């Protein structure tokens, strides 16, 4: 094992336990994104580009400050801008920093068929190891948040790493370091929940009665959490999933059914073998040949067939 801070607790397409002698007794980490403090400056987007050496192509204006228009293999975090007119008729500019949520129960990892292409560290970070990625896109199918992007060039899957390389050596993620308003904070998940609780209390005292923490239980909680003014309507924030969970189709596809299917295939082959052992082959013997000859001769002496040749050629 390389770094204790990068101990792997879960590994894609692996059926045996991961080494777990070293527990994560110090807890897991989390990034808290306080949408109520965000001013949409995109310093986090730039910091992400710089630290991860990513340069997305120059896009086109889609009528908002959002740029690029969507997450890509080169844009792992993206400020999503929503203009929301609240029931009072006031305009609210809702800005949400989108990116991987680092689910405790990651749909991408569940769906991935390639051993070790997706891992979950003891600190809670879900990371893609592109050298093991085969480019099938099953992670896209599994993700409840529409995060992974397959590069059209190298056919590998990419997403936010929560700066696992920085976190591994005790640094905070690049986006956190760049945030000028304190909208982004990083620490243990417990501390972040506590900090969020204070923020929510403050927001409620200032009239945001539905303010709350977004830490969706459907995916076991996430290691990227939001403080939202409208926690009762997360979908207002550029379609943030209200109740994300791994799709039933994906569960059926990747759950107990697969080992079961494998077993049935094995048993089918085995059934054949034992049928052969117990019942034996179905063989033609001399009596059959004699009966056939008799019919053949009888049939032909009675009536030579005019189109037997044609029938013969039928496949």
């Amino acid at each position, binding site marked *: 094992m390389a770094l204790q801070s990068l101990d792997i607790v879960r590994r894609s397409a692996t059926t045996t336990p991961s080494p777990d002698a070293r527990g994560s007794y110090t807890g897991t980490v989390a990034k808290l994104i306080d949408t109520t403090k965000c001013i949409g400056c995109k310093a986090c987007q730039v910091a992400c580009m710089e630290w991860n050496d990513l340069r997305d192509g120059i896009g086109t204006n889609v009528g908002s400050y959002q740029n690029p228009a969507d997450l890509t293999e080169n844009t792992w975090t993206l400020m999503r801008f929503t203009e929301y007119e609240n029931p009072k008729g006031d305009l609210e500019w809702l800005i949400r920093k989108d990116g991987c949520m680092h689910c405790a129960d990651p749909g991408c990892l569940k769906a991935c068929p390639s051993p070790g292409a997706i891992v979950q560290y003891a600190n809670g970070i879900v990371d893609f190891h592109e050298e093991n990625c085969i480019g099938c896109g099953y992670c896209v199918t599994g993700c409840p948040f529409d995060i992974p992007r397959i590069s059209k060039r190298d056919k590998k899957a990419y997403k936010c790493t929560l700066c696992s390389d920085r976190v591994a050596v005790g640094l905070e993620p690049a986006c956190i370091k760049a945030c000028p308003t304190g909208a982004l904070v990083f620490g243990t998940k417990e501390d972040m929940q506590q900090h969020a609780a204070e923020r929510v209390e403050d927001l409620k005292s200032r009239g945001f009665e539905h303010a709350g923490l977004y830490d969706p239980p459907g995916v076991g909680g996430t290691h990227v959490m939001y403080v939202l003014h409208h926690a009762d309507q997360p979908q207002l924030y550029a379609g943030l999933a209200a109740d994300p969970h791994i799709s039933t189709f994906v569960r059926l596809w990747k759950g107990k059914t697969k080992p079961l299917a494998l077993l049935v*295939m094995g048993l089918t082959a085995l059934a054949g073998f034992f049928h052969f052992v117990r019942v034996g082959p179905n063989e033609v013997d001399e009596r059959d040949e004699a009966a056939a000859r008799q019919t053949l001769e009888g*049939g032909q002496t009675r009536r030579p067939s005019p189109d037997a040749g044609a029938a013969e050629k039928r496949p």
Partner: protein
Amino acid sequence: MSDAERRDTIVRYPAGVRTNHWLLALSFVLAALSGLALFHPALFWFSGLFGGGPWTRILHPFIGLFMALVFVFLAATVWDDNRLQPADWKWLRQWRDVVNNREERLPEVGRYNAGQKLLFFVIVVCLAALVLSGIVMWRAYFSWYFPIGVIRLATLLHAVCAFVLVCAILVHIYAALWVKGSVHAMVRGTVTPGWAWKHHRAWFRQITHAAHPRTGRD
């Protein structure tokens, strides 16, 4: 039947059909191995046969398409002989006689027996579903055009159909080994009159135009 008579054999599968069948069989084996590699981690090592994970992912859909294409030609050739007749249901109900080699108790079988016909339609349905769902899942070219819900459903459907098809083909392979002379028929093209008489009597009568002993009809 001049040729066949001289050799005292009956042509069951001409060279074209044999070629078609074995192209289908080879592509099925390759598609199944590459697909099973991605089906369950226990079989991921199959991907080594194709040059690693990415190559398996690249090749699998092309192999699958080739298989489906080859099957279209085979299906066109054998479709008519695979229509289910009333006697086929009787044959299926007597499956105990079938698996215990008591063929004399079964209704006379035409060119294909009810089991073969069922297999044929299982392949038709599974391959059609596999091709359609496979296109939806084909990340490199087509997945971009479909909403995520459709992709998820297609992925599940693909796995289910592949499972059914693999089981069906395992039965098919075993049946070929079990009924002696079948492999020879598909490799060399011919069967003995006794083989046709025993396993496909109605077909035997039809091609030899021998009168039916009971009805006296052709």
